[in-house]
């Protein structure tokens, strides 16, 4: 079921900031890919100039360079596909989404952010194929905001668990990890997120102690 954009997407500034952070991160990755392809092309040119001067290029060298270019193209294509899903997530305020795909989408698009902080992000999904009707863009934004808490808290490992509780009515995303410090604005941010989760008929709960944070985003398919 699809629904047109409605008023519940408040905080447009937050949406733009979120969109901007993802795009900045992805554009950096694209530039890395372009740079590698540019160097590979340059190396081919260097070798062909040397070949003209009588230094032949071994076949395996050409094959290896060609493989490397193909690898970068595949890397770029994977990223484009995820960027496309992400961009279209803003099209409708409500539609059927696959939780696995949403989490994978955010994992791919935030990969560089986590790598730069040397934080490992792992996803586990004991019950595959959970779909629900929600706002695909808001869900991504709230999930990213949850993940961002761990980047702020200098966490080394963050785990996302996708689960469906026993009663079968609500799905849940659990984001947890060890942290070095709890950021001073942690409570303010989590309280704001609670309200935003309610706007997509979700509930956000958290538990924390000095070294561990667990954030639970409980999502109901029934919006009315």
């Amino acid at each position, binding site marked *: 079921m699809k629904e047109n954009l409605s008023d519940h997407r408040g905080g447009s500034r937050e949406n733009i900031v979120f969109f901007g952070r993802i795009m900045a991160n992805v554009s950096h990755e694209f530039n*890395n890919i372009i740079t590698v392809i540019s160097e590979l092309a340059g190396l081919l040119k260097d070798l062909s100039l040397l070949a003209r001067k009588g230094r032949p290029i071994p076949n395996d060298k050409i094959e290896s360079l060609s493989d490397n270019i193909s690898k*970068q193209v595949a890397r770029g294509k994977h990223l484009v596909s995820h960027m496309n899903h992400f961009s279209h997530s803003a099209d409708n305020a409500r539609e059927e989404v696959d939780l696995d795909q949403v989490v994978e989408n955010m994992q791919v698009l935030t990969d560089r952010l986590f790598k*730069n902080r040397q934080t490992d992000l792992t996803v586990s999904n004991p019950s595959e194929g959970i779909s629900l009707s929600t706002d695909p863009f808001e869900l991504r934004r709230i999930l990213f905001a949850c993940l961002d808490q761990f980047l702020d808290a200098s966490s080394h490992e963050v785990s996302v668990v996708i689960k469906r509780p026993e009663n079968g009515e609500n799905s849940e995303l659990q984001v947890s990890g060890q942290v070095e410090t709890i950021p001073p604005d942690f409570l303010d941010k989590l309280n704001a997120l609670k309200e935003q989760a309610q706007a997509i008929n979700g509930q956000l709960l958290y538990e924390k102690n000095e070294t561990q944070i667990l954030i639970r985003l409980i999502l109901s398919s029934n919006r009315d």
Partner: protein
Amino acid sequence: MSSAKVLLVDDEKEFTETLSERLRLRDLEVFTASSGREAIDLAGQHRFDAVILDLQMPGMDGIETLKKLLADDADQQVIVLTGHGTISKSVEALKVGATEFFEKPIDIQTLSEVIGKAAVQRLTLIEERSAHAIEDVLKKKGW
């Protein structure tokens, strides 16, 4: 002058491997590091004519690495080569002491020329420092 010795610092392994191969074809001696920490360790072991440094890397970022490289060796010539080419970042890097700032991808001819200039500049700085040191000794001894 013997071939320049260059340290290439970037976490994108495919990039450092390919660019170093191209620079070696131009008779440069090239070392690579995939992190700021590794770069600092290598710079402590070798005297590089130029360091080519990315800004966005896991762990110690490029600006922090730049500061540490210059703290360890004030004459070190550091060329920033980054995909994250904002004006504020370039101003910051140049203020900290980077020799040049370029956005990726860079033309190999331009990079080779910049490395050549950096090598000459480093040599000049070292010679000037040696000359000052000799002058100081002469003054102190009253010769």
